[in-house]
């Protein structure tokens, strides 16, 4: 009945049924919190404090070099009622998000499935597709991007050469500047692709073999096997891509020289936040902007989580 089981000492103790359940729960709690210890420490020591302070600052008038002064909801009021640039920033960010996230995911997933088939030169292709993610944030790329998209840049030279003469400045005209940044982001799909590749590795080949024997074609296999098995990873990639898109800063900052121009057409939300906080020295307002962004992205994330219940298939359920 109670054979000695080597290993986990606590398994040796036999308790009456309900007490076993309770002590099991308690053990689980202890184990859980034991594993969570680093994160808890991190949250308390490193993250929690600054986060709480930033919330406080959002209700103040804080010029960084002076002391914060409580002004209640004034920052939030100003944001929603008398700040057209706030709405402009939201519009730019949402446009960027809605266009680039699907594009990135589609490219990444497509290339990952293609490369997963054991093609010759796989290693080389994988590295090549990933390289843009490695150098994307650098100053060098910002310079190059301007070279490509300015009025006498590479793209226009190419277009002129194939018979479409133009000297349109893609990067200097408000209506197309954002598109160049979207392109810059899509160019860096390699990171998502790597994650998909890792996920694809975890899909057992037998499933595909069994399906083939049942007469399923490539597309059918993709829909019925790959997508469901990969769904936790897809969910992760999409959610993270959206969160990252909300906070996109670096490329816009470098390519537009911190201006969000031309004429605020590349004024990403966090770039606007940065301007308000560090250029205008209006840190209270910037903090409020930050918290509004958290609420918006939190809302979108919650929505995605809710959706994922129906659509994502976990191996542990």
């Amino acid at each position, binding site marked *: 009945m109670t054979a000695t089981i080597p290993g986990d000492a606590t398994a040796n103790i036999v308790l009456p049924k309900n007490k076993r359940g309770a002590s099991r729960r308690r053990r689980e709690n202890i184990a859980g919190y034991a594993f969570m210890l680093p994160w808890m420490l991190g949250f308390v020591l490193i993250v929690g404090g600054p986060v709480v302070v930033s919330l406080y600052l959002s209700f103040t008038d804080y010029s960084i070099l002076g002391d914060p002064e409580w002004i209640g909801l004034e920052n939030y009021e100003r944001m929603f009622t008398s700040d057209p640039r706030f709405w402009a920033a939201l519009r730019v960010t949402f446009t960027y998000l809605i266009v680039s996230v699907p594009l990135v995911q589609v490219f990444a997933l497509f290339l990952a499935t293609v490369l997963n088939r054991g093609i010759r030169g796989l290693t080389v292709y994988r590295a090549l597709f990933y390289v843009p993610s490695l150098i994307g944030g650098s100053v060098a790329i910002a310079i190059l991007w301007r070279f490509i998209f300015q009025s006498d840049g590479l793209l226009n030279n190419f277009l002129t050469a194939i018979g479409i003469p133009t000297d349109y400045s893609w990067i200097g005209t408000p209506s197309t500047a954002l598109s160049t940044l979207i392109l810059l982001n899509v160019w860096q799909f390699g990171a998502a692709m790597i994650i998909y590749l890792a996920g694809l590795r975890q899909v057992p080949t037998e499933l595909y073999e069994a399906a083939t024997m049942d007469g399923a074609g490539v597309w059918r296999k993709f829909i019925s096997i790959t997508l469901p098995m990969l769904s936790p990873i897809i969910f992760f990639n999409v959610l993270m891509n959206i969160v990252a898109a909300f906070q996109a800063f670096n490329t816009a900052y470098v390519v537009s020289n911190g201006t969000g121009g031309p004429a605020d057409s590349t004024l990403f939300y966090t770039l606007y936040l940065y301007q308000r906080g560090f250029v205008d020295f209006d840190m209270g307002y910037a903090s409020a902007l930050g918290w509004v962004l958290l609420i918006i992205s939190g809302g979108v994330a919650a929505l995605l989580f809710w959706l994922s219940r129906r659509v994502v298939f976990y191996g*542990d359920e």
Partner: protein
Amino acid sequence: MSTLTSNPPMQEVVARRRRRGGPDAPIGRKQFYRHLMLIAMASVMFYPLAWMLGASFRDDSQISDPGIWPGQYFTVDGYVEGWEGIAGVPFARFLFNSFLVSGLCVLGNLIACSITAYAFARIEFRFKGIWFAIMLGTLMLPHHVILIPQYILFREFDWLNTYLPFFIPKILATDAFFIFLLVQFFRAIPRELDEAARLDGCGHVRIFVRIILPLSKPALATTAIFTFIYSWNDFFTPLIYLTDTQLYTVPLALRSFIDATASSAFGSLFAMSIVSLLPVLGIFIAFQKLLVEGIATSGMKG
């Protein structure tokens, strides 16, 4: 037949393919078009890098040339001058610093994020849902908003001008992106394996170390690679916390090659950008093996 076996390592797949047509068989049409498409895309991906490479061997005055070939303006001045570094601190030192910092970050993340992810993925404990939401929430607050409070906090800890602001947050699992990544990967591993181990008397620690971790090699490799690259390319944290040139990391050093108020050293910028790309590519290629050969099983025995 319910025995599911592992995903075969890549060599076998390729070998199988080869066996079909023999070593000298021409590639099929499908393969040809596939390669064509891949090559076309790869060239587009690769062009900017090729340009940077060409520009690094080209005299500064030709900076506006969008072509790849340096031609008559070939020079290695960019590499020579760039390697001398800044104010007597050689570039090799910056590379070393970056390696140190990135290495520490990888270590920190691998340990801390996997532990935390295991808890979220495999243990039922009180308030788990709330903590998970908070963890994800930390990802959604823009960094600039907590920058100054965090700077003052680290200053109080006396961490300025050290590498502690880089390492400690990692070892304390503040990088929620990777926690979430690992949670998703862990959850894709069927619970039956855990339960089988439990019957054998394993507790959480054993399950974590003996079952989950080995099956997550692709995910862990991904975490390692990405952490390394993010921290290697991180410009802002070093800018704020490091004032001593001796401690500078590569991105900080690279930026100073193009100061807007002085003549720009483009050649040095591109040359050293290429030089600092090599270790990152190297790490990536080294870890790629793990991505390729990671074994995933969803097997039930018998």
